[in-house]
């Protein structure tokens, strides 16, 4: 048997073996790559997976909620960038609140650099960032005579609607203060407020191999080498017999 024929047989055999062995991985890479390419169309950039086992795998230790803010019939518990306002979960990446006050027709949550104004039904009326606030950082939020009051390093300001602010003349202000949660409540709220991993991030880590740590990308690199070998051997197997026929 000629060396060329031997090489051809060798290549054909290994082309088939590598292709068969890697079919699951290649399909996996193809599917995750396709989904990642259309992640915005599928809305994956805004979806999060909340699972304790996944957090453990990622090495993320959830921060348990320790305090609650209460005002009238409303309460807010926050942890891990998530808010539970009157039992309703917010999205992700929310700031740490400094207080909560109830006003006629609205509930206001303050962070150090923003205010969130909610209607009584929980719908967001407005989000005021630092440029719409009289001063930042906000140190405390309170209410007095149906006015929203903010304490900052530059003074204490009040507003009835969060739009027009003026220096607060009054002393009788009920400042929002955190209340410690009981151990049972901490445990209950910790489960509700555990952090999430975005689906897009998860897919990206699966696709790149990073989900398996430092050696994961090397394994994906190896698959890339296999793919290159398959392409080259496939091309050779495709062209070589044709080349021979053309010579005859």
């Amino acid at each position: 048997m000629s060396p060329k024929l031997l090489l051809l047989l060798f290549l054909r055999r290994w082309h088939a073996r590598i292709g068969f062995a890697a079919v699951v991985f290649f399909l996996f890479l193809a599917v995750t790559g396709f989904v990642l390419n259309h992640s915005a169309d599928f809305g994956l950039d805004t979806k999060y997976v909340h699972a304790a086992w996944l957090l453990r795998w990622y090495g993320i230790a959830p921060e348990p909620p320790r305090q609650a803010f209460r005002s009238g019939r409303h309460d807010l518990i926050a942890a891990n960038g998530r808010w539970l306002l009157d039992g309703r979960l917010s999205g992700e990446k929310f700031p740490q609140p400094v207080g909560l006050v109830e006003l006629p027709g609205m509930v206001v949550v303050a962070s150090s650099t923003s205010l969130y104004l909610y209607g009584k039904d929980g719908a967001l009326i407005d989000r005021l960032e630092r440029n719409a606030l009289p001063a930042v950082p906000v140190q405390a939020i309170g209410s007095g005579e149906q006015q929203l009051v903010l304490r900052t390093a530059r003074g204490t300001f009040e507003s009835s609607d969060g739009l027009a602010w003026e220096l607060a003349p009054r002393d009788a202000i009920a400042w929002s203060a955190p209340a410690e949660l009981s151990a049972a409540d901490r445990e209950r709220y910790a489960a509700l407020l555990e952090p999430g991993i975005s689906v897009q991030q998860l897919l990206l880590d699966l696709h790149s191999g990073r989900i398996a740590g430092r050696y994961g990308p090397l394994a994906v690199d190896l698959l890339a080498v296999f793919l290159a070998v398959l392409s080259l051997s496939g091309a050779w197997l495709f062209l070589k017999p044709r080349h021979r026929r053309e010579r005859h």
Partner: protein
Amino acid sequence: MICAARRSLAVLILVFGATAVAHGEVYQEPGAFVAEVLGSTPALKVLWLTREMQGQAAAILGHPPAQLRQRYWSDAHKTVWILEETGKEELITAGFVVVDGRIDHVRVLVYREGRGQEVRQSSFLKQFKDAKAQGNRLDRDIDGIVGATLSVGAMERMARLALLFDRLSHDNAHG
């Protein structure tokens, strides 16, 4: 080894998270933009979005508007809107000036995405000059930018929303 893998994953997430925040670049404070456009900062006005208006805004955005109260500024001729919309993952803050139902001026004020900052360049933004509403879209095609497709889409949606809000604010003013 598994612990090391977990640590590196957690670090990656923290690094990417921190990077996303660090990338938030303020090109101009919204208040400064309003003052520049109107010469001073006139009294703030408010457009409350009724259920019907929310539906109209949702048809443009592809999702319900984030909030029910939209702040804006105006003088005798123009209205100024500071709007926010998500590009890929983060919010883009942009200022829109509307005159006679046409976009007069657009500026990207805060850009928080890791890439796609090209949408702030005047060569891109000048495409919006004199754009009018046509259905739920603009009356023209806006040329995209390679690598910034989602940010370009967000800018188009915000421009169309500014035109809707401008019309609604005039409707409200005239009763």
